[in-house]
């Protein structure tokens, strides 16, 4: 570090691996001034969004529809709009104004696995309940309402009368029963029951009450169910295609691919004809909204040409139940056209060139200056949507690492973890990689999050204090150093060297940031080895308990209870792990794996308990979970509440009802939380 003012840019240049960034960075140097002038504040606006209207008095009296649908009705090819929408429309008050019909929304995607681009905005299995724009409150969505019974042991889900699938067939309680009996309980389709359908490890059931009412029944109170239905969970819709989850499915369509409803011989013939390996593969492929244009959906748009082609197109669902406050059936925009980009650089360049109307996913924060520079030319505006989670980048200690007892010992020493956290110069990292748009932070979520334990936890063990870090390390028994100033192991086997595992090609440049931390930790005498690995290898190593430190983000953790995997060891299949043996212990109720230390156990118990208690008590438990996480530093928070993960949004200036800031989270399937069905083209 020579000249503090210049260092970040030099760092930026050095850290760029791809050549386009060298080109981009030339522009970046030019635009750096522009960024400094426009500042962070003008890019991050006020959190806002459309609202769901639940008061029937405010419902529109009559319904209107897009011109091309009106033409079809006139030609007798489609029933009238009132019949299609049904008696209980889902009324949404657009953010700014009533829009106009028409236009095609151009965006990009990177291949058949990148279904998120269409899922988050437009289609797929929509949620029964969903968040309001603040991401805080659960509102009715596809379901008309949710009613608690029997002290939380049962929940009545009220469906909308007359609501239909995109092929015009009614959406009823039978679709839930079909899912529960024939998909969820079919061992070939779903070998292990989902935790989302259980409370305290005890599975619940789904029953039909009448055509428009469904009951979820659980052996113990399950107060969390509304959040689970609204969140990105097994009941939150999105895993239907890949894993057969979802809570409901179009029974009338899928029965033809299910062994219970067609003969085995006929099913075999169908599987062979379609060249699938098994009926399960075929069933899941048929149940994939992005892959199979024939699959009936409930979302505003539906797939017209599949995701495994060069252009993935979605068109308006004529049976969409969404309407605006004046009774216009949503969506306003006719079609969504997502073009295949072979790599992320192409996505970014196309966005810079103004070839996308609205793109958020894959937009690289590191190129922000270039985006700003080309705003006028490309006819777009850049918005930043910082996340509410505490870590755009976090570092997990693998508390179960046992290949080297010395390292295992230090990882399980709280002061060692805390000292390492104090050795990170977060401001330098923030300036270099987040261009100053992030917040140096511990792992706790944003201050306005209901589970945030209090302002004093933001900076807890999350400031730069080299002196204190050194003192702490000296005190715990790591005072001896070698000639280069690195601390020596206490077992006399040379230098204490620890490894961090990173993944390349992610939204955040983990490897480059880890390299910077490596330099910073030299000042506390710690020798860090940065290892970038391919993700399959990372997964294999974490599962085999071979990881020491792992870098990742904790996006989603602001919804502590629906997205806990970056708060404590919750999941085996992780690219960064806090302890695979604790995961086993947690999920096997203590019969397998390894029992965690008392504080970790306390954290786990509080988290688990929260599912079965009323909201007020749950919020208290959530705060306590975060308190323990921040105090014990099982995970180091580096930079948080920044826009690095899908938080840079490029939107054409002629698009209307665009929020200046939106809640950015996987749970909110941003921009889904801003109701893209209300977006429109002003001209």
């Amino acid at each position, binding site marked *: 570090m020579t000249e503090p003012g210049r260092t970040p840019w030099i760092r930026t240049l050095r850290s760029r691996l791809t*050549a*386009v960034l060298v*080109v981009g960075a030339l522009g970046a140097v030019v635009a750096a001034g522009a960024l400094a002038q426009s500042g962070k504040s003008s890019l991050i606006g006020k959190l806002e969004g459309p609202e769901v209207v639940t008061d029937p008095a405010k419902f529109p009296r009559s319904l209107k529809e897009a011109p091309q649908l009106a033409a079809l009705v006139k030609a007798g090819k489609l029933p009238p709009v009132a019949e299609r929408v049904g008696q209980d429309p889902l009324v949404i008050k657009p953010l700014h104004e009533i829009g106009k019909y028409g236009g095609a929304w*151009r965006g990009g995607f990177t*291949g*058949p*696995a990148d279904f*998120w681009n269409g899922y988050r905005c437009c289609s797929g299995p929509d949620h029964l309940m969903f968040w309001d724009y603040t991401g805080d409150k659960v509102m009715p969505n596809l379901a008309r309402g949710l009613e608690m019974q029997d002290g939380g042991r049962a929940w009545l889900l009220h469906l909308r009368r007359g609501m239909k699938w995109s092929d015009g067939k009614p959406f009823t309680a039978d679709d839930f029963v079909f899912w529960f009996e024939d998909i969820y309980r079919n061992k*070939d389709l*779903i*070998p*292990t029951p989902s*935790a989302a359908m259980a409370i305290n490890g005890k599975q619940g059931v789904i029953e039909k009450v009448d055509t428009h009412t469904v009951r979820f029944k659980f052996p113990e109170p399950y107060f969390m169910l509304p959040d689970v239905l609204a969140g*990105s969970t*097994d009941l939150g819709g999105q*895993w239907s295609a*890949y*894993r057969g989850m979802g809570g409901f499915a179009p029974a009338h369509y899928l029965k033809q691919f299910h062994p219970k409803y067609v003969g085995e011989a006929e099913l075999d013939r169908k599987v062979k004809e379609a*060249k*699938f*390996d*098994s009926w*399960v*593969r075929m069933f899941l*492929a048929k149940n*994939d909204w992005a*892959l199979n244009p024939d699959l009936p959906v409930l979302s505003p748009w539906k797939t017209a*040409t599949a995701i*495994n*082609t*060069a*252009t993935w*197109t979605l068109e308006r669902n004529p049976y969409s139940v969404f309407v605006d406050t004046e009774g216009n059936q949503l969506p306003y925009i006719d079609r969504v*056209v997502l*073009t*295949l*980009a*072979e*790599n992320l*650089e*192409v996505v970014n*360049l*196309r966005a810079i*060139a103004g*070839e996308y109307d609205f793109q958020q996913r894959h937009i690289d924060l590191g190129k922000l200056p270039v985006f700003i520079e080309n705003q006028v030319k490309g006819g777009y505006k850049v918005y930043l949507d910082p996340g509410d989670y505490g870590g755009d980048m976090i570092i997990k200690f693998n508390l179960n690492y046992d290949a080297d007892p010395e390292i295992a010992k230090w990882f399980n020493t709280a002061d060692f973890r805390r000292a390492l956290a104090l050795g990170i110069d977060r401001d330098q990292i923030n300036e270099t990689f987040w261009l100053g748009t992030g917040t140096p932070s511990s792992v706790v979520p944003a201050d306005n999050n209901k589970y945030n334990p209090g302002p004093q936890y933001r900076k807890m063990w999350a400031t730069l204090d080299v002196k204190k870090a050194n003192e702490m390390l000296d005190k715990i028994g790591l005072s001896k150093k070698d000639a280069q100033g690195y601390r020596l192991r206490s077992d006399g086997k040379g230098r204490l060297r620890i490894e961090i595992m990173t993944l390349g090609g992610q939204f955040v440049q983990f490897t480059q940031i880890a390299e910077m931390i490596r330099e910073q930790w030299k000042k506390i005498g710690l020798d860090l080895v940065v290892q970038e690995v*391919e*993700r*399959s*290898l*990372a*997964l*294999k190593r974490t599962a085999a308990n071979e990881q020491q430190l792992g870098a990742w983000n904790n996006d*989603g953790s602001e919804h502590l209870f629906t*997205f806990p995997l970056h708060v404590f060891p919750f*999941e*085996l*299949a*992780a*690219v960064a792990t806090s302890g695979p043996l604790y995961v086993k212990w947690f999920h096997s109720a203590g019969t397998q794996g390894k029992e965690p230390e008392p504080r970790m156990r306390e954290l786990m118990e509080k988290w688990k308990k929260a599912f079965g208690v009323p909201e007020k008590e749950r919020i208290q438990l959530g705060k306590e979970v975060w308190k323990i996480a921040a105090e014990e530093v099982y995970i180091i928070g580096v930079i948080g509440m920044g826009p690095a993960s899908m938080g840079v949004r490029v939107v054409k200036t002629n698009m209307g009802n665009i929020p200046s800031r939106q809640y950015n989270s*996987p749970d909110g399937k941003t921009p889904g939380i801003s109701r893209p069905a209300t977006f429109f083209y002003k001209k």
Partner: protein
Amino acid sequence: MLAYIGRRAVLAIFTVWAISVLSFVIIQLPPGDYVTSYIAQMASMGSVVTDEEAQNLRIQYGLGQPIYVQYLKWMRLIAQGNFGMSMEWRRPVTEVIGERLWLTVVVSVAALILTWVLALPIGIYSAVRQYSMGDYLATFVGFIGLAVPNFLLALVLLYLGFVLFNAHIGGLFSPEFNDAPWSWARSWDLLKHLPIPALILGLAGTAQQIRIMRANLLDELRKPYVVTARSKGLPELRVITKYPVRVALNPFASTIGYTLPYIVSGSIIVSLVLGLPTVGPLLLKALIAQDMFLAGTIVLLLGVMTVIGTLVSDILLVWIDPRIRLEET
């Protein structure tokens, strides 16, 4: 002559078989399998895939079986003309590759023709007029072409294309023609997009071929038979084209073996950068996702093309160079 070709053909069949084994082994080399990479992908999106589910997936995909069983199954499928199902694209491999193969061939053949059209005359010129201004210029440009990595060139051209001409970024078609059925308008659109990828892909090859042509021709030009031909009074053009150029073409013919697979795979990085819908990026993604059948089929395809290419160049050599023909008979 026939026996010669026959022998080569039999050898070729064996080689193809060996390649099929090798390509299958190569796909299995990295740690994990498609299910691991699938779990990783799910995990990075926050979804839990349990051990039982993973096990189930392995059974469904037949990944749990010993490798030779998997290989035999694959071979049996291929014998029926079915190359398997791409796990990631969830479509038959032949469909996934098929639509891209033609575009790949178009781009690469364009690059190849460009290479030869430029390289042969320039190479001949700089050999015949050695140390002239033109030779120096060709050498200079040639070395730059060799030294600049073509993906970098691609990036620079993309950026300049956007900044200066507001050109569409990447791809082989304008957005409106992406999925359109083939028509004159679409072909014309393709032609308009072709020059830049062809130029970038062809440039390094051009530089190389110029150097090879020049060096070979220089060797030949100094040989006594050229002097003899001149002294007998043959016109200069005829002296050069009839014998030395023909001999100097030898290496061109013998490299066809590598040129054919290059047509498919040589463009991986450039295609990735330029966003071309060709086979290259497909192979890369398939390898990353460990999409076994897709990657295996492409690697096999490359192998087969190398073998066919070698066979073709063997035959061409016999045809161009009488000396080889004489040795054989």
